[in-house]
């Protein structure tokens, strides 16, 4: 084993490069300069700062703020130190470990996929749920207002006060049996022919005019409203938004995009985040149906509206929006039918005196805002 190596020495005071001969001893390095002066570097004072990868020179430092530097081009120098000074092994990189690095890198690649999938499927939803169920209702309301503002920026808001009052009455009929509820429900109607409805955090319910035109009875609309109210009560929109935000933040953190991190926080409360899991949908269906029944509303309306939506989805591509967010319609209708069949009460007609066909005209009345 070679014990004397050629290297370069920098004294940390000037940029002068001094060729040196380095002898590897058992307790340190003996460095001989060209003028035959000797420097002694005990191993316990040496730090290796470079030479961990193929093609790198071995760079050693001694001293604090502006250290002296020793550079050896040949990486075999490290092997020599390992053999001649076993005690100093921990202070230096072992070149033989480099072969292992490829395997480790591959393993790390696999780990990224496994860990990323675990975070995506489990970690982030669990985190988002935990946060969303603890924030105060007033924060949810604020968040919901942002979502509604985004929607009203895209299409006109219908503000016919008479008809909105009728819609409010349906909501209070639904919520009366379970009073007091922590949310104040506010209905926004959009002049949009899409057959759609959605719940924003904090009790904001958004109805698209297309839905109001297509429903034939107040009971049918009550079915949709009960479903959306349950989403709000179970904080599904808030959880969905938090999930979306954490996902963006994670991606930004992983790609090292600090600006993206800021925009992930900015994107909090954007519509794209409002997607629910199948489990959430089933819960909103089930508890929505219970809510209808507690309010003594005919459960057939909810089933009818699902059938209408299913049919529309088949006929008109534009109506797709609602159902594409609500998959497995047939299973859901079957579940609702099972629950409805168990109902043991005489339904009280909802708004018997109100001509429901009038509701479809809600966007025709233009009131100054």
């Amino acid at each position: 084993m070679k014990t004397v190596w050629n290297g370069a020495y920098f004294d940390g005071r000037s940029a002068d490069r001094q060729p040196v001969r380095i002898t590897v001893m058992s307790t340190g390095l003996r460095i001989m300069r060209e003028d035959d002066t000797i420097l002694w570097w005990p191993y316990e004072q040496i730090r290796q700062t470079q030479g961990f990868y193929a093609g790198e020179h071995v760079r050693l430092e001694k001293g604090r703020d502006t250290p002296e530097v020793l550079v050896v081009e040949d990486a075999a120098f490290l092997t020599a130190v390992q053999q001649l000074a076993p005690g100093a092994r921990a202070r230096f990189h072992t070149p033989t470990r480099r072969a292992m690095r490829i395997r480790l890198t591959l393993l790390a690649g696999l780990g990224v996929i496994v860990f990323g999938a675990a975070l995506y499927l489990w970690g982030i939803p669990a985190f988002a749920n935990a946060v969303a169920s603890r924030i105060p209702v007033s924060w949810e309301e604020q968040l919901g207002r942002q979502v509604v503002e985004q929607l009203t920026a895209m299409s006109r808001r219908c503000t016919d006060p008479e008809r909105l009052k009728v819609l409010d009455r349906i909501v209070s009929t639904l919520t009366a049996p379970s009073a007091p509820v922590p949310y104040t429900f506010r209905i926004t109607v959009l002049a949009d022919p899409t057959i759609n409805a959605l719940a924003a955090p904090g009790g904001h319910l958004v109805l698209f005019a297309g839905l109001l035109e297509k429903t034939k009875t107040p009971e049918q609309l009550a079915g949709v409203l009960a479903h959306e109210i349950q989403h709000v009560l179970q904080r599904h929109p808030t959880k969905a938004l938090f999930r979306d935000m954490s996902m963006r933040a994670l991606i930004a953190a992983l790609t090292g995009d600090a600006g993206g991190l800021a925009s992930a926080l900015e994107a909090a409360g954007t519509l794209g985040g409002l997607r629910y899991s199948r489990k959430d949908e089933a819960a909103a269906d089930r508890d929505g149906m219970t809510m209808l029944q507690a309010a003594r509303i005919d459960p057939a309306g909810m089933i009818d509206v699902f059938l209408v939506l299913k049919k529309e989805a088949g006929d008109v591509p534009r109506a797709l929006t609602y159902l594409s967010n609500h998959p497995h319609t047939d299973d859901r209708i079957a579940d609702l039918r099972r629950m409805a069949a168990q109902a043991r009460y005489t339904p009280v007609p909802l708004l018997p005196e109100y001509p429901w066909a009038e509701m479809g005209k809600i966007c025709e009345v233009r009131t100054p805002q």
Partner: protein
Amino acid sequence: MGIQGEGQREQQGVTVSGAAAAAAPPPVRHRSFHGSGGTLFGIFIVNLLLTIMTLGIYYFWGKTRIRNYVHSQMEFDGDRYAYHGTGRELFVGFLKVAVIFAALFGGRVLAETVWGFVGQIVFGVILYVFFLIVTPIVIVRSRAYRLSRTSWRGIRFSFRGAARHFVRVFVPGTLLTLITLGLYYPFFQNNIRRFLVNHSYYGATPFRYDGKGRDLFGSFLLTVVLSVLTVVVVSVVVTLMLPRLLMSGDVGWLWFILLLAAVFSVLLVVYWFWFSAYLQRYFFGHTSFATARFRSTVTGGRLLRLHLGNLLRLIFTLGLATPWVMVRNIRFAFGQVALEGPLDLAAIRQEAQAVSAAGEELGDFLGVDAYNIDLGL
């Protein structure tokens, strides 16, 4: 000083072109880069895993590892560079920045809830002023951090410009550029360059910049005029042709519009790459270190080829080629810049400066990386 510098450069240019005949040509030094995209990719992957596992905290250590590797693969005059930053410094810097951002975010929410719409506007103005003043501070701090953590032959680089002095360059410059509809831009860029270069040191020796804003003005104006002319010509052609093309009911007009759009964008890209290359050549040509002067041979065509190649690589690998693109960029930058003239490196003394990393992390948030200019050394 400027004239003297110019003369010196001319003289050197003559000497270099006649180098074959001269007995001892002045030394020309290039930096070279030995890193490989593959190794860098491995580091990226391991960083990614550790970052996920630590919920983002490892990010700062990962960033340091990459810089460490990249610096150790950079060579000048037979010796490698070294990076001395630590992940811990970056993390502490990030925490400081996070506190500032949390305060800003809280302030915004408070302003909106207490004063409503007016609060939103007032806060928006405050925020604009805040960022206008903070951006130059961050540029200086970030630069100071990076240079102070870089060494070559055991001697540290440093940046000694005071942030408040740069605010006095940056804020009026930004406003003047706005007021003059961009005409002040070359003067502004020149002032920025002068400040950033003149306060940069290697050991105790400063870098020197002697460029003049008015030298840049002509090329800038030419680029702007060409761009405006192109926009005008294309708009006129479109407005004249479009009704007729639409009337004809032929689908061919769509192709015509697409072709026009392609020609239009290619022309604009060509003008601005040309100007950008000119700026680089001018900036380096007017930068000197001790007795040597930098020279850049970059051209618009080469820049265009570099960026086009990068873009294609990134698109076709869905971004996986990022480490290789990084290597390509460094190789390109090093290949284009040379240091010419005699240089007594042994005479350079150590003079390190202490700097915190807070500016560095805020710089990440504000995206001021463009100002982390390459010194050529």
